């Protein structure tokens, strides 16, 4: 019986930790190889909040604090500590650093913090760790061992799992969760749609850190001891294995993973070794780690989505279909200063090492035009678009938008001003449906923030309904109704281009930068897209479009800018350009 209770508590601890990790890794795409340090921090803080001052037990152990505070203060303090500890790491997972480099940084941090705590005794009693941590709601030393208390503790653990599960679902099933998943699938694109990656990732780190801290508190309250040996970096790998096997991004999967890996696995090996005392003492633990390694590789190969894959979120249009046209709600178009020039570049340069991809470009795009940008491969068109949208920083020069200098603004800020781009390469959010891709781009959604998500569906339902109406109007217009609830990653190349254009339009841009929007699209459909865009331009949208298909340029774009070798070669209508020999030459030579 006692054994079962222990199992139950361990299960609760591991399930909570796996839920936190699944939220970071599976939902937000933040690979936190240092996850265990947040659990450790929670355990230590819970311990020193509950323990009396370190002089109390004859001073056999030393630690900071020792406040002897009653339950539930230590648990709350632990969650808080886990969350706060996450803050200094945000610089690692912020906007600039590659995900795998950040993961390495976190792994290294985990290893070294463990070494530090182990060697520095005044902090948490070093290598030996803290012990005799009082059990919650008990006084004296052995009171916490009664059967009833143990069962109560087990139940409390399960309640904590349920609470964490409920909390995470509320976040994940909200528009905010959708944004997190969009960032996971493609962070650069999320940035270009106005999502602040730094804030989003900080949110994921802090949420997961607090949950990990809570799991640590639960554990230390039960076992009463906590030392560096309990939180080696390898424990993180066990939790990762559990989440990968259970199903990253599916919270039930995380709980299942906790049952299978940390709990099931260790108990099986304990069972085997208890029954075979003749085995070398080191063999089974070693083989256990080998098996963990094999499980990681085999699952990532055979079933990367895990036993319980992420659920597909099917979103249907309102029953009151047949509502006329784009039921767009209030017009969110931002007030724009009177000038006719929407976007201006002045001497913009971009150097990659010795290559001058963009070598001093000055151009302006007039409001309400559909301006074309053509040029041979390698002319610097896509790089220029990246500079204008803020995906990349200029080496020199200035960019202004609607009269405002935006040279140093990051991409997401430019998107919020209404300057939105699409990408040359496929950039749909693969594991979001077509509808979700569109919804993820809606600006100013009440549910698209941590607090908004917590306030619940009732708080953001109105915005969501309006957004769904707009999304379906667009989907219908672009002829993708049949695919509306398919994963975007499963569409054909041409359909993905459509998703991308629609998604950009959902931001309600004032200026749209399109990078080869018609590539791979059926010519008939390309014309239809062109007409739709032209219509939008008449309503006030401005477009700057890179496209190789000159027929499209002929029909829709005026003026057209020609680039070659990183510079603007000419500008005019297509008819004018055809008469200029250097333009024709650049194309032939390029």
């Amino acid at each position: 019986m006692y054994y079962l209770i222990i199992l139950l508590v361990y299960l609760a601890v591991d399930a909570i930790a796996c839920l936190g990790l699944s939220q970071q890794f599976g939902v937000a795409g933040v690979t936190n190889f240092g996850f265990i340090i947040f659990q450790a921090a929670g355990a230590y803080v819970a311990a020193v909040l509950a323990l009396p001052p370190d002089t109390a037990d004859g001073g056999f152990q030393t630690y900071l604090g020792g406040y002897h505070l009653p339950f539930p203060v230590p648990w709350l303090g632990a969650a808080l500590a886990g969350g706060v500890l996450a803050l200094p790491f945000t610089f690692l997972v912020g906007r600039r650093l590659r995900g795998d480099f950040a993961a390495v940084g976190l792994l290294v941090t985990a290893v070294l913090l463990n070494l530090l705590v182990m060697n520095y005794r005044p902090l948490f009693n070093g290598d030996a760790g803290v012990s005799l941590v009082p059990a919650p709601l008990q006084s004296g030393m052995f009171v916490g061992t009664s059967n009833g208390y143990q069962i109560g503790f087990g139940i409390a653990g399960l309640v904590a799992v349920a609470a964490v599960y409920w909390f995470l679902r509320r976040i994940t099933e909200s528009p905010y969760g959708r944004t997190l998943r969009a960032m996971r699938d493609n962070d650069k694109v999320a940035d270009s749609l106005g999502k602040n990656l730094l804030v989003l990732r900080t949110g994921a780190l802090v949420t997961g850190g607090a949950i990990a801290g809570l799991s640590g508190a639960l554990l230390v309250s039960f076992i009463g001891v906590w030392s560096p040996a309990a939180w080696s970096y390898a424990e993180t790998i066990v939790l990762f294995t559990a989440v990968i096997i259970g199903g990253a991004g599916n919270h039930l999967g995380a709980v299942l993973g906790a049952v299978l890996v940390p709990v099931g696995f260790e108990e099986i090996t304990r069972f085997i070794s208890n029954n075979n005392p003749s085995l070398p003492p080191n063999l089974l633990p070693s083989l256990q780690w080998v098996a963990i390694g094999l499980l990681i590789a085999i699952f990532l190969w055979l079933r990367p989505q895990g036993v319980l894959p992420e659920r597909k979120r099917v979103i249907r249009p309102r029953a009151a279909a047949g509502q006329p046209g784009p039921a767009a709600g209030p017009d969110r178009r931002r007030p724009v200063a009177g000038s006719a020039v929407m976007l201006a570049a002045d001497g913009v340069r971009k150097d990659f090492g010795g290559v001058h991809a963009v070598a001093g470009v000055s151009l302006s795009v007039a409001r309400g035009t559909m301006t074309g940008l053509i040029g041979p491969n390698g002319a610097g068109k896509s790089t220029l678009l990246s500079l204008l949208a803020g995906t990349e920083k200029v080496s020199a020069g200035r960019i202004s938008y609607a009269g405002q200098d935006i040279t140093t603004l990051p991409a997401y800020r430019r998107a919020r001003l209404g300057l939105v781009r699409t990408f040359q390469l496929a950039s749909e959010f693969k594991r979001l449906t077509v509808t979700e891709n569109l919804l993820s781009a809606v600006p100013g959604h009440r549910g698209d923030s941590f607090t908004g998500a917590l306030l619940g569906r009732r708080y953001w339902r109105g915005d969501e309904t309006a957004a769904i109406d707009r999304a379906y109007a667009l989907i219908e217009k672009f002829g993708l109704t049949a695919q509306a609830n398919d994963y975007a990653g499963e569409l054909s190349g041409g359909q993905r281009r459509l998703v991308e254009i629609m998604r950009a339009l959902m931001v309600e841009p004032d200026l749209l930068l399109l990078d080869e929007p018609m590539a791979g699209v059926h010519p008939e459909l390309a014309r239809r897209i062109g007409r739709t865009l032209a219509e939008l331009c008449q309503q006030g949208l401005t477009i700057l479009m890179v496209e190789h298909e000159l027929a499209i340029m002929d029909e829709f774009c005026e003026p057209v800018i020609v680039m070659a070798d990183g510079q603007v070669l000419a500008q005019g209508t297509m008819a004018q350009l055809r008469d200029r020999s250097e333009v024709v030459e650049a194309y032939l030579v390029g």
Partner: protein
Amino acid sequence: MSVLVAAVGFGLITSAVLAISAVGFTLQFAVTDVLNLAFAAVMTAGAFFAYLVNQSGVPIWGAVVAAMAAGAVLSAALNYLVYSPFQRRGSAPITLVIVSLGMALIVEFGTAAIVGGVNVSYTMSQGRTIHLGGLILTTVQLAIIAISLAVMAGVYGLLRYTKLGKAMRATAANRMLARNCGIKATQVIAITWALTGALCGLAGAVFAIDVGSFNPSSTDIFLILILAAVFLGGPGNAYGAMLGALVIGLVTEVSAAYISPDYKYVAAFVVLLAMLAIRPAGLLGART
């Protein structure tokens, strides 16, 4: 003063071992695009293979060559059986990092399961001690430094003058483009795994010689130093890794002498995090 000199001496040896590993790691990453966290585990596997060879009566330097062979075979096998299938499927870089962690567990604890978790030492003599203006080094330590310098010169010659080295650099810069230029990228990558694997095995054996007594988990922390050296110089940049190894080796040993040996890795850790935060491209810029 003599403390400093002694610390610098230790630092140079650590740097020498570290340079071999860091150059191997960074070339591996540059050409194959795998941030191979199993590198340190393969080092130990090589060191243990050398131990078995050494125990069977082969002199230590012969055993070191055996470690190189073991490292090359094991690394090539990891690529052929694991990393390259994942890459062909188009897995994300982060997936490969997680897989490489799994491989690290398999190699490290596979070694432990075979040899047991005990500490072992090579059968060898440390040779005469030599005094070099205040520095006191053994012949073996000097040999380690000489091997390291030879490896650095060899890597420089390889990258600068040989067809293979140029093909490696081209593959590192742009695999697709290299392929289109007629470079057999798959082959270059396979050879790179074997070559860097040999460096890895060599590093493992030299590491084991340097520390004297080792077990299957001895290189766990050393991986951190490798990563620090690699990121300091710029991930994927071979010369950066050499510079990084020199700096990290000296910083750890000198800080060990003046602060406390318990905290000698903290300096490496701070360097690594600072580089990641401020200049992820490293001192010499990313990639060769």
